[in-house]
């Protein structure tokens, strides 16, 4: 018997990469999963891969009416919600001196504002035993050239969990941050190339990039009652990248 038997999960940014890996693992563990993403083509491919216990809702976390449609779909089909993985995120690089208001707005709208509304709108469907997972990043605690805005947005995400521990007191809903680093997603492979991946991976304690499935395992741990005494914690899944 899986450790998420009968649970209902929402995963934003769930059509590719880390979100998709989490969706796969959740379904293996017995959950029903709603994935939310912006590109219909990617959503269709993900659903073909995930099978009958997954549904796709197209939309952006930076659009409140899209999020309303997502949760209406969850309510209509399943009635309640146990797990939210607020994973949708964007990133681009600009050095101090070149940063524009547009660059800040694009990143903060999705990573911070989008995360806040993803969680806030989910709450009415959630109850005791609920688990919220926010995707942070090793960038939230490290300094990398040209990552001012992305890193700050992920540091903000880590802090959301601290306040929400207090705001969710008495509800039985937990909130934790899962902070990946050096994960070999398709996006990372495209951005860095094979050589870049190798160099990045060599900075970790394992001298390799992480596999998205390793993130899926950690997400399942945070989603399940295995982490029942954890709330407000940050779990880095980065091979040690942000620890040294």
């Amino acid at each position, binding site marked *: 018997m899986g450790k998420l038997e009968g649970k209902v999960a929402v995963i934003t940014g769930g059509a590719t990469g880390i979100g998709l890996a989490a969706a796969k693992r959740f379904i293996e563990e017995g959950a029903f999963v709603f994935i939310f993403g912006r590109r219909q083509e990617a959503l269709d491919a993900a659903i073909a891969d995930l099978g009958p216990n997954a549904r796709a809702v197209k939309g952006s976390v930076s659009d409140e009416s899209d999020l309303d449609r997502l949760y209406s779909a969850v309510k209509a089909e399943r009635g309640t919600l146990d797990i939210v993985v607020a994973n949708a995120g964007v990133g681009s690089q600009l050095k101090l001196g070149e940063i524009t208001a547009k660059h800040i707005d694009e990143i903060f709208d999705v990573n911070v504002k989008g995360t806040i509304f993803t969680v806030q709108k989910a709450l009415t469907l959630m109850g005791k035993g609920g688990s919220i997972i926010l995707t942070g990043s090793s960038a939230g605690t490290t300094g990398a050239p040209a990552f001012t805005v992305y890193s700050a947005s992920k540091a903000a995400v880590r802090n959301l969990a601290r306040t929400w521990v207090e705001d969710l007191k008495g509800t039985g809903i937990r909130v934790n941050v899962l902070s990946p680093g050096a994960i070999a997603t398709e996006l990372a492979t495209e951005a860095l190339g094979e050589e870049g991946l190798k160099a990045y991976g060599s900075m970790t304690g394992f001298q390799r990039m992480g596999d998205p499935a390793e993130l899926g395992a*950690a997400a399942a*741990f945070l989603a399940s009652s295995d982490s029942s005494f954890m709330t407000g*914690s940050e779990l880095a899944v980065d091979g040690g990248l942000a620890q040294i």
Partner: protein
Amino acid sequence: MGKLEGKVAVITGGSSGLALESAKRFVEEGAYVFITGRRQEALDEAVNQIGRNVTGVRGDASNLDDLDRLFDTVKREKGKIDVLFASAGKGEAAKLGEITEQHFDAGFDLIVRGTLFTVQKALPLLNDGASIIMIGSVASVKGFPGFGVYAASKAALRSFARTWLNELKGRHIRVNVLSPGQVDTPDSQRLDKETREMFESLIPRGKMGRPEEIAAVALFLASDESSYVNGVDLAVDGGFSAI
């Protein structure tokens, strides 16, 4: 099939509390477990409770000869270690102004020196890809009055994890710290009602952790489920240190 099938685990300070609970869980998941403790009686009782696939080795984690005996036994019986769980530790309170040399030495001998030599002496037996777990404490990131020495000793373990992550790179050995908050162990059960309620009021979850909740996280860190988790300090404290 269990998550630790065929694995050999060594748990220091394994005869009570969250470490004992972890030992039970590891055995349920297929591991063979060596536990240590200073008191023969408590150790025998723990071995009884675990019931199978367990060896108790009496010893003090701050005593280097005892550690040699422990690892000689492991070597003779199993020849390898996959999971090393260094949990031996105990904290006494003393405020700045009242700290004695004896208080400092007792804390640092067991927690810092004891953990360091536990890991160092285990190294020849640790498999490549092994998982080392050290028990830290939320005290290390908070400022509880009277717990300066204890908190500093636990902070030292968190620092060891960073250095060892780099030093053990070539062998793919993972090193993580599990930092529990207030857990409902036999020690906590001795607290009077008022102190207990005071502690619980500080935990956002509103209730102390149960030893089995810590054991579930220890299992995550011990198993392949955490294969890309390295060098972290994982707070398992009902939100206590997050705020």
